[in-house]
């Protein structure tokens, strides 16, 4: 099995926010935290486009690289997850993420930031599968039930595709060939163009 990926087809997204609602409902996400959201470009103008955005579970995830407490890990299916018991809510991952995926629920008085929360690809977290602790911290573990993320499965126009990267890319390729346009995939290159493991920097290179 290849690694899990998200793909949003902007030609099909009708900005219904069904994915956002499905995510909220599935994991009982608190008010103010949006693991997934729909972004509309050129809103109100002819040719406007909408895309559903969440954590893309990048090949070379920048959040993993900048985390000062190393609370991120990647599963064998390529899903980027984190341990909330370790997270200190510093917000570095939010600055590093090109998709604005990390969310910080308000915790206590004076606008204190709680532990980071993000899309888990409906794969739970490092707690016993289907346990109350896993649901409370990370939400439902649909992957362990043999299901794909709720947002993608709920999408009425099938604009949002989630699952095995090869299959998702095949579905999209068929669509593009059939309709003859709209081959651009927002965020795909940013998230998946880099290899899983970065090459070591060349000697003398600046970064």
């Amino acid at each position, binding site marked *: *099995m290849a690694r899990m990926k998200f793909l949003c087809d902007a030609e099909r997204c009708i900005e219904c926010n069904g994915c956002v609602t499905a995510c909220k409902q599935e994991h009982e996400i608190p008010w103010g935290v949006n693991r997934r959201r729909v972004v509309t470009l050129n809103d109100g103008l002819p040719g406007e486009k909408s895309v559903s955005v969440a954590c893309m579970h990048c090949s070379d995830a*920048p959040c*993993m*690289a*900048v*985390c000062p*407490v*190393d*609370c*991120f*890990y990647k*599963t*064998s*299916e390529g899903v980027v*997850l*984190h*341990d909330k*018991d*370790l997270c200190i809510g510093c917000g570095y991952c939010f600055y590093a993420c090109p998709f604005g995926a990390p969310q910080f629920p308000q915790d206590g008085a004076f606008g204190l930031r709680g532990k980071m929360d993000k899309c888990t690809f409906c*794969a739970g*977290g*490092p*707690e*016993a*599968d*289907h346990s109350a602790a896993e649901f409370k911290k990370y939400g439902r*573990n649909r*992957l*362990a*039930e*043999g*299901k*794909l993320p709720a947002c*993608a*499965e709920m999408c009425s126009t*099938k604009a949002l*595709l*989630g*699952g*095995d990267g090869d*299959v*998702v890319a*095949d*579905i999209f390729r*068929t*669509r593009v060939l*059939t309709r003859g346009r709209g081959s651009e995939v927002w965020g795909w290159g940013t998230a998946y163009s880099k290899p899983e493991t*970065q090459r070591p*920097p060349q000697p003398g290179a*600046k*970064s």
Partner: protein
Amino acid sequence: MRSVVAVVLIALIAAAGLAGCGEKPNVTVYKQGKYQGKPDNVPWQSAPFNNNQVEWEKAIKARNNGQNEYLRAGS
């Protein structure tokens, strides 16, 4: 006395000139850290798959293909 002062002055100028050679690279290179948290298990480990990876992959594949309406419509 004069020559001593001249030598000291030359040494100071040389030291000040060489001080610029100690420049460090200013660009941060992030290194992938090592996960410090609790271990997680594979999705097929618990019920309903009970360590049957083949069954789990079959279920995921069926769901994956369910997203392809061209396949569902049979066109």
